[in-house]
């Protein structure tokens, strides 16, 4: 039985909390750098490679190496094995506490891990990543002797991971359902990665506090747009144009306007709708989120290559579910950086576009508990008129609060606090946590792409009729255009800082 009875309920039994424990645990290992210890440098990281160079004289070290300098003497395969063992053990521990089938989880996780790494390594081949641009008088594309290239930058591994996952989910349905489903937990991986991103935000705040502060504050404005603008429009359309009952319309409106499956379930619970309603809406949300992830980063990059922060923030308001939003933000980040490099020869710093997308979404997430509580009160008093008999406690707000946000905030506050209080320690801190914020975070993003793809079966859209139609219409006619206009009003002309020469 899994019920929330006390404020601490679920601390060892939900993915949300386990993303906090794993994320902060590894971050704490990174902090050991302040004591002169490197406890995270064993992590493997792929290297850029070119296939003719590899076929000439094969060496594992051309494909990946340990991330930390102190582990440079390790054989790449030992580093890879350590990466596999540590992450498998941590997630399996969480799976055990959540009473999942640990054996099935480890089998599924191992398969996802292999696919992830295959996509990550292949995606670092220079014909996929290298951008034809002259930077500081050097053109590495020409220097590498490339005659052609897709020029996708670091977005190439993400796209490959997504394609691999979708191939599994749509052409290997039986395998995905039997072998991968227990471990294909995209939200868990992305929430853990978001905790790691707290380190990135800390570094960004340190480097450009005004810009980071602006992103944080304007993210809050998106909350008003989602709850007070999108929601009423979609609810009204669901009632008047599609003839949905009040409870279905409310759940659909939350799913489409606010934060996807999470909001649909929270709203369904708040208005005490039959669980089949949020379950159905969530199925639609998950499939559309995947479509948004596939289409929007490339579309925004093509249409507005000079508006990186606008594109990021618009994405955060448009793409539902944390996994799809963060994944789309990461993909947009890399595609925009590559495109700008191609067009101008200037390289933007990584992570700012992703932060614009993520901070927008996190603010929306944070208020879902409050929104559901308000809806519950309105429903009891105005719709059911049962305020004499039914009461809902404010503790519901806490139960619905996304706990991974706490991990993100703690990682940011600890990093920024230490670096601000003891500036002399800042370089050591940045260096020590670079593996956490870099390859570890990227690997979890890659795992998210594969896991999301593996669980997305587009054929399920067939039976979802009117809800899917409403979702599609609302997305194209209301959510995406308004989100873009609002993001443009706040962020037009803003660009990430340039990478120092």
């Amino acid at each position, binding site marked *: *039985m*899994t*019920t*929330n*009875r006390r404020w601490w309920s*679920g601390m060892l039994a*939900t*993915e*949300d909390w386990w993303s906090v424990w794993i994320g902060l645990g590894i971050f704490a290992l990174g902090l050991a750098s302040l004591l002169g210890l490197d406890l995270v440098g064993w992590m493997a990281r792929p290297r850029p490679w070119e296939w003719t160079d590899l076929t000439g004289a094969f060496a594992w070290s051309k494909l990946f190496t340990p991330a930390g300098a102190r582990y440079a003497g390790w054989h790449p395969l030992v580093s890879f094995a350590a990466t596999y063992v540590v992450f498998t053990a941590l997630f399996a521990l969480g799976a055990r506490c959540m009473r999942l089938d640990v054996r099935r989880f480890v089998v599924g996780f191992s398969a996802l891990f292999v696919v992830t790494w295959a996509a990550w390594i292949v995606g670092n081949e220079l014909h996929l990543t290298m951008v034809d641009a002259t930077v500081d008088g050097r053109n590495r594309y020409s220097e590498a002797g490339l005659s052609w290239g897709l020029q996708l930058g670091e977005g190439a591994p993400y796209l490959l991971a997504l394609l691999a996952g979708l191939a599994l989910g749509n052409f290997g349905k039986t395998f995905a359902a039997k072998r991968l*489903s227990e471990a294909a*937990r*995209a*939200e*868990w991986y992305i929430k853990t990665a978001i905790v790691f991103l707290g380190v990135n935000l800390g570094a960004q705040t340190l480097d450009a506090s005004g810009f980071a502060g602006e992103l944080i504050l304007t993210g809050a404005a998106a909350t008003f747009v989602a709850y007070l603008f999108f929601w009423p429009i979609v609810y009204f359309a669901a009632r008047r144009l599609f003839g949905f009952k009040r409870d279905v319309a409310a759940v659909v409106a939350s799913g489409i306007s606010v934060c*996807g*499956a*999470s909001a649909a*379930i*929270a709203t*369904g*619970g*708040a208005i*005490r709708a*039959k*669980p*089949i309603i*949020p*379950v159905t809406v*969530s199925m639609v949300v998950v499939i559309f989120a995947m479509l948004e992830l596939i289409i929007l980063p490339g579309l925004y990059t093509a249409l507005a290559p000079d508006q990186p922060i606008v594109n990021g923030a618009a994405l955060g308001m448009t793409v539902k*579910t944390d996994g799809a939003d963060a994944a789309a933000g990461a993909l947009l980040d890399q595609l925009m950086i590559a495109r700008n490099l191609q067009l101008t020869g200037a390289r933007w710093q990584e992570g700012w576009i992703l932060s614009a997308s993520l901070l927008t979404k996190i603010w929306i997430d944070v208020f879902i508990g409050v929104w559901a509580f308000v809806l*519950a009160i309105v429903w009891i008093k105005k719709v*059911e008129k049962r305020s*004499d*008999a*039914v*009461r*809902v*406690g404010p*503790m*519901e707000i806490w*139960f*619905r609060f996304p706990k991974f946000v706490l991990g993100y905030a703690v990682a940011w506050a600890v990093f920024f606090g230490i670096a601000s209080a003891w500036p002399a320690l800042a370089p050591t801190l940045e260096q020590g946590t670079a593996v956490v914020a870099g390859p570890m975070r990227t690997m979890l993003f890659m795992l998210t792409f594969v896991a999301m793809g593996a*669980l997305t079966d587009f054929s399920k859209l067939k039976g979802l009729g009117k809800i899917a139609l409403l979702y599609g219409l609302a997305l194209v006619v209301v959510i995406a255009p308004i989100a873009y206009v609002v993001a443009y009003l706040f962020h037009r002309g803003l660009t990430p800082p340039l990478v120092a020469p």
Partner: protein
Amino acid sequence: MSVRELVLSFERDRWRAAGEGVDVVHGDLRGLETLLEAQLGGEAPIDVHLKFDMASMPRWLHQYQGHYCNYTLHVGRRPGRSGRA
């Protein structure tokens, strides 16, 4: 006022409230609450805390939201029984 704590679940298109010697089932939540009021009316006034069991939601959904709903049903004295509303 006495208090009961029951587990609320949703099984095969029906709501169920169970625990502390109570086990009622109904297709509609309002109907379930009416059954509870009838069964526990003798103990009125009573607060029935209903805690939703997430195990009755599909497992793949738990990653998005680990909580559905908890609420309290207040069963008051019936006018005919106690003379008070």
